[in-house]
C-alpha cells in the first residue's frame, strides 16, 4: 500500500523533506508512526502527536487505505 506523507516543523527537518510517498505494510497510523520514527528519529512519543488522514483528525487505530495522505502533527505553537 502506498501512502503520501507530509511533514511539518521539526518533523520536516528530521525527515529532511516536506513530503514523501511510502510503500508500507502498516494498516493504521500507530504502526506507520513506529515505522517512520525508526527511519527519521522524530523526537516525540505518540502520546504527544496527533494524526490527520486526508485533512481530518483521526485516531491511532484508524484503518488506512491506499493513496491516503497522512500527517503526524507534533505539538503546535501558534498564537
Amino acid at each position, binding site marked *: 500500500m502506498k501512502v503520501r506523507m507530509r511533514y511539518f516543523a521539526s518533523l520536516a527537518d528530521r525527515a529532511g523533506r516536506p513530503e514523501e510517498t511510502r510503500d508500507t505494510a502498516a494498516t493504521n497510523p500507530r504502526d506507520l508512526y513506529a515505522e517512520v520514527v525508526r527511519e527519521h528519529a522524530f523526537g516525540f512519543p505518540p502520546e504527544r502527536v496527533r494524526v*490527520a488522514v486526508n485533512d481530518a*483528525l483521526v485516531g491511532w487505530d484508524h484503518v488506512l487505505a491506499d493513496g491516503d495522505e497522512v*500527517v503526524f502533527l507534533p*505539538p*503546535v505553537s*501558534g*498564537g
Partner: protein
Amino acid sequence: MKRFELRDAPIDAVAERATLEDPAAGGCVTFEGWVRNHNDARAVTRLDYQVYGALAESEGAAILDEACARFELRAARCVHRVGALAIGDMAVFVGVSADHRDAAFAACRWIIDEVKRRVPIWKNEHYADGESGWLHPGA
C-alpha cells in the same frame, strides 16, 4: 463571513473589531497576540509561522463554532498570521461580542487557549545569535 481565517498579510485590528458589532451586544473583548523580542531568556529577532492549511482552517472554524455554542455570544472572530513576522507584529487576533461581559471575557480566553492547543500552526523562532528553532511546547 468565516469566523476563523488564516492571513499572510498584516491584521487590521480596527477592521476585525468591526466584524463583532451587533446592536444587541453590550460589549466586546479582544485579544491581540504580538511577536515579542524574547523567549525563554533568548533574544528573538523574528519568527516564521508554518501552517497545515486545510486542517488549520477546519480546526479553527470548529473552535469558534464551539465557542458560540458554549458561551452566550453575538459574534466571534479569530485571524491568525502565517509566514514571516517581525517583532511587534500582530500574530493573532481574537474578538467576541456578547450581551454581557462575563461571557465575553470567558469566551475570548477560551478561544485563544484552544487555538494555541489545537490549531496546526508551528512557530520557528530566529534568535539574535543566528540560531533558530521550532517550538513544540509541552513535556
